[in-house]
């Protein structure tokens, strides 16, 4: 489900100090990913100028961390967020995930902690949803949209966790997927899980419930992260920037 390229970029074998040529060579093994990476690297969200012509140039321009994000975004969209006949729902799920990724990084920054891994925790928190949807439709291809949505909630965290473990994703991501609805249940990587939980709430606020700011502010995770009302004000004010990042990540 996850292309080889993305799996290799994510499992830590290729890290910050990898040779640029080696990464470029790896990416060129998957033409679909290469094309999307170049398009996104040239997009406004990544400060692109439209002049990036090669993966090597993209790497130098946007860096491995962001390249890793883009590759994963493309790979997950192509490999997981694709359920025939339900494109609108899946596209909505994807946009929610991309906003959550952008917000997770911003929350980490506001907490003055390293923002590097938070993006992926947010981006992948709901990775189980399209999988559950695909499985449900295999059982009954005629499920209504309402029923589809209803089956996602109870199972997506469990299925997502299993998927993340299969992909050998880092522990912080696995825990964020498993516990973003009940961060109190996380035994490890608690700050990452809390950030993913709040990023999920922000993504809902931006995309689905623009008037439900009160509910977000009242959520216990804000207290758990020690985010004061003025800190939340600053994060809410960034909603347009986060939407722009999410749009840029959409294939």
């Amino acid at each position, binding site marked *: 489900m996850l292309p080889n390229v993305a799996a290799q970029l994510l499992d*830590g074998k290729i*890290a*910050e*100090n990898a040779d*640029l040529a080696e990464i470029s060579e790896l990416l060129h093994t998957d033409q679909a990913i290469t094309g999307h990476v170049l398009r996104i690297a040239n997009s406004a969200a990544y400060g692109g100028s439209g002049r990036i012509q090669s993966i090597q140039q993209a*790497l*130098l*321009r*946007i*860096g*491995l*961390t*962001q390249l890793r994000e883009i590759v994963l975004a493309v790979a997950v969209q192509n490999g997981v967020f694709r359920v025939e006949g339900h494109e609108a729902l899946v596209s909505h799920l994807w946009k929610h995930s991309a906003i959550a990724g952008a917000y997770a990084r911003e929350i*980490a*920054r506001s907490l*003055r*902690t*390293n*923002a*590097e*891994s938070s993006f992926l925790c947010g981006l992948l928190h709901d990775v189980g949803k399209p999988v559950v949807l695909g499985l449900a439709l295999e059982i009954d291809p005629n499920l209504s949209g309402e029923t589809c949505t209803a089956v996602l909630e109870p199972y997506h965290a469990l299925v997502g966790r299993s998927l993340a473990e299969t992909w050998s994703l880092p522990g912080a991501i696995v825990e964020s997927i498993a516990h973003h609805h009940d961060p109190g249940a996380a035994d490890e990587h608690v700050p990452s899980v809390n950030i993913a939980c709040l990023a999920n709430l922000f993504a809902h606020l931006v995309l689905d419930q623009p008037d439900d700011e009160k509910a977000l*502010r009242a959520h216990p995770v*804000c*207290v*758990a992260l*020690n*985010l*004061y*009302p003025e800190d939340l004000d600053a994060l809410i004010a960034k909603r347009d920037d986060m939407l722009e990042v999410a749009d840029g990540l959409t294939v």
Partner: protein
Amino acid sequence: MSDTRTYDLIVIGSGPAGQKAAVQGAKCGQRVAVIEQSASVGGACVHHGTIPSKTLRETAAALSSFRQRTGNQLSFDIPANVKVASLMARLGQVVQAHEGYIGAQLSRNGVEKIHGRARFVSPNEIEVATVAGTRERVRGTYIVVAVGSQPRTPPNVPVDHENILDSDSILSLIYLPRSLTVLGAGVIASEYASVFAALGVEVTMIDKNPVPLGFLDPELTSRFQTQFETMGGRFLGNATVKQVVTDGVVVHTELEDGTVVTSDKALCALGRIALLDRLNIAAAGLAPTSRGLLQVDEHCRTDVPHIYAVGDVVGPPALAASAMEQGRRAACHALQLDPGAPAETIPMGIYTIPEMSSVGLSEAQAVERHGAAWIGRASFAEIARGHIMNDPHGFLKMVAHPDGETLLGIQIIGEGATEMIHLGQMALLAGSRVETFVENIFNFPTLAEAYRVAALDIAGQVTQRSRPVTTVTDATPAPA
């Protein structure tokens, strides 16, 4: 808004300074509250600074000692891409233990903890905004401001906590970078620069001053710089940073002279700023100094007599040990208790690799104050324990009064310096003579022998020479 609670003493901030002020007040039977904006007590010292950085340093120092003791005969290189978290696996336990100890101490002494952000509404009244958005007012007869500080970010250094980090975010790095540019050459910059160099990272330290840690004795800083460079570090002094930019892959640090230093990551350690912005000190009748600090007298009292300020918020030395003493003294003064004579012998510990420590007067201070000084030196190369540890670069400097008898200060660089210094501190406090170290025997082989060697050096000079030094010794490069 609930009813206003009243206290004899309100302390804002629960770092080392605030904690000691609160406990001192409570031990005197006063009703004391501590207002802390973080969910847990301890301040930056426990959560971002002293305790976490020393946990990573412990690993780096152990590696450095291992290489030193085995004469580099056994190779132990850090694997590429090692996760920083794996180098301080015990961090969670260490922080939790310290936080638990501080919390228990406050509770045991009956100090009330209020979780929220404080803001003065009048000289005696403080509004506390909780994380949940509620507000309450508390009133204190005396108030101690111990809000601490956070890293300063100059406009030409765009800290993003991903590629360009500060001392709050550096320890949450995921992977050990290949190279690191450290901006600054103060205590925090020098500590991290040497720790990452000991871990095998290619470190470049950049500062406008000619040497790192310029406030220390030049003989110590010279030896530190030599050892830092031996570990592969590079120091660029007299350098002004024009701008720092990152393209996501690397960080480019451009200097005014056109030099560009490129590294995987950068650490901005260009000082700290007092956390006064949310405190509304104007409502208390206070104003910050031009450096954004609070001005205090020798009792840590501000211009408003019932308000005290302690710790980083009053500026240098901004060390945990001095902050604790300031907190205690402030509470004692407020409660009209005798805090004892001001401690002139608070040691200074710099947790670089190798570590450095100082207590009492330096050579320069002694010459300035007394017109002259006797200087005794002991290289660890002359000490059996130093040979066993293979630390020939370690060094102890003893400063004595022109009378040749009165001990004035000690400076040490080398493994264990921050512990060894306490022997000198006790000698200073007890008014011991230089000869005390000659006439008494320490365990053998230990590094404490360096005290005896330095004392013998002074005794020999006093016997053979007619005059002590009247000009400060130039820093001599450490032996290669």
